[in-house]
């Protein structure tokens, strides 16, 4: 980890591979939930647009949770 190649974005060190994975995972879950939404709204009998966005955001959050587990933190905290 010590010599791992990273890039600095907004003051944070990131790995492009892990960022790519995180974007892919969160987007995949967001769009999956988004496209499933009309079927869910038909069952619930509510407006599809609102449910699509809500479920899409929920999917992105699921993706975020998985990404937290698959990406490594690149900060070392020194307590002074």
């Amino acid at each position, binding site marked *: *980890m*010590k*010599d*791992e*190649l*990273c*890039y*600095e*974005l*907004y*003051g*944070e*060190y*990131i*790995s*492009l591979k*892990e*960022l790519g*994975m*995180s*974007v*892919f*995972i*969160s*987007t995949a*879950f*967001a*769009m999956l939930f*988004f496209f499933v939404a009309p079927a869910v709204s038909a069952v619930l009998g*509510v*407006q599809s*647009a*609102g*449910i*699509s*966005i*809500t479920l*899409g*955001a929920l999917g*992105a*959050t699921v*993706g*975020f949770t998985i*990404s*937290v587990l698959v*990406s*490594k*933190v*690149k*900060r*070392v*905290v*020194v*307590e*002074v």
Partner: protein
Amino acid sequence: MDPLSLLLTLALSAISTLLYIFIGILPGTDETATMAPIALTLLLAGLDPLLVLVWFIASIAAFKMADSIPVALAGIPGGVMAVPQVPDALVAKERGLADTILRKGIAASIVGQVVALAVTLSISYYLMPAGEWLRTADVVLGVKVARWFWLVLAGLAVLALTSRSRYVALISIPSFALLIQGLRGVYGRPIFVSFFLGITIGPMIFELLSMLHKDLRQAYVRRGMKEVRLVKIGKISLNPLKILSRDELLHCSTWSAVTSVLATVMSPVGLTILIGDLLRESSKDKTRGAVLAYTVRDAIKNATYIGGTLIPLLVIGEPTGPMAAGPAAPFFQKLDSIGMTPRDYILSRYDYATIVLMILLATAVSFSIAYPILVKYSRKLTLAVFKRVPAEALYGLFIAIVIMLSYYDAKIAGIFGTLVVSLVSGALWKLGVSLGVLFMTLVAAPTLVSLLTALPL
């Protein structure tokens, strides 16, 4: 207000507060990128716009209180608005005053928001009749131009002239407006969300794509882990009135009142820099000046966000400043589900007293949760976030939400439209153009392009 609305107000304020404490502490979280998409999502999901406003006000209270915590503890800003506080914090930390600025910043946020609410809600009440006059259209060069447009144009000019690169900012206004209207012409309808999100994530996309370029990549390369030095803090009193001196309280109150009104057309970050630097430079004692500047900047952050949202929302009805055209923009865009803008929905469905009550309730709930949490657990929270949450996961979440909302807005073309706008926005930002200029150009684009094409030249 019925019991269900009251319950929802309390619940949404609490959830928003907890979420934005977390987002505020995370380094590098841009306000527009984190506040607007979530507010937009809630609006599109069909939540009552007044409840979304409640969510938004609570998020301002928590976010602007929390984003200076990592500045005080580690010299790392939790959001764009906290960046001007870094030099003050470094001076204070050198003198062992990290816990002093931490507690003063938290208390100043409360003062800033409370003063701004008192000022803007009173001013808005008396100025509301002027809103009708501002929305009236005059014919200029054969084009119908609403009077508020001139206010936007004046704000745009001020913002452009105070940008790091004023000439590029000035010439980018008509060019960017043409890009927006050109893309709208291709789509065949007045798309907003894709373009708005494109500007929001522009700097991030531009930096990311630069990293894929063989030569440009070298500037971003780092090895190993980023070292973050976290200072220890002592016990902090829970009584906010014991934390600020009389002088600091006076400065925080005065400048919060002034900047909350100025933020109607001026940039919140610009005002935070301007007033803070003035106070720091006017003090003969470097340490005292740094602590005062840090404290007042924290108050101004909350005040400008409140004023920049509420005056355009309650009085003008159009996003006349960078705050209203940026983080608060979702309230000014027409939603198909309600057939009007959330702003119009709120003002047509609720009386002024109910709106004020909900806003005050959201603020009270947010501060009563955020204040004790941040005073007691700020260090533990910062440590946990720094040690457990990778930056990649957070950036991935925001990019995913942007892709989803762009698709919702204009299908696959919407995603590529967002990419084009984000690349141009990122390039202009890199050249020193404030993103506020681009947000406001997006609002002014239809009238601006109509006037440009009607010019007899």
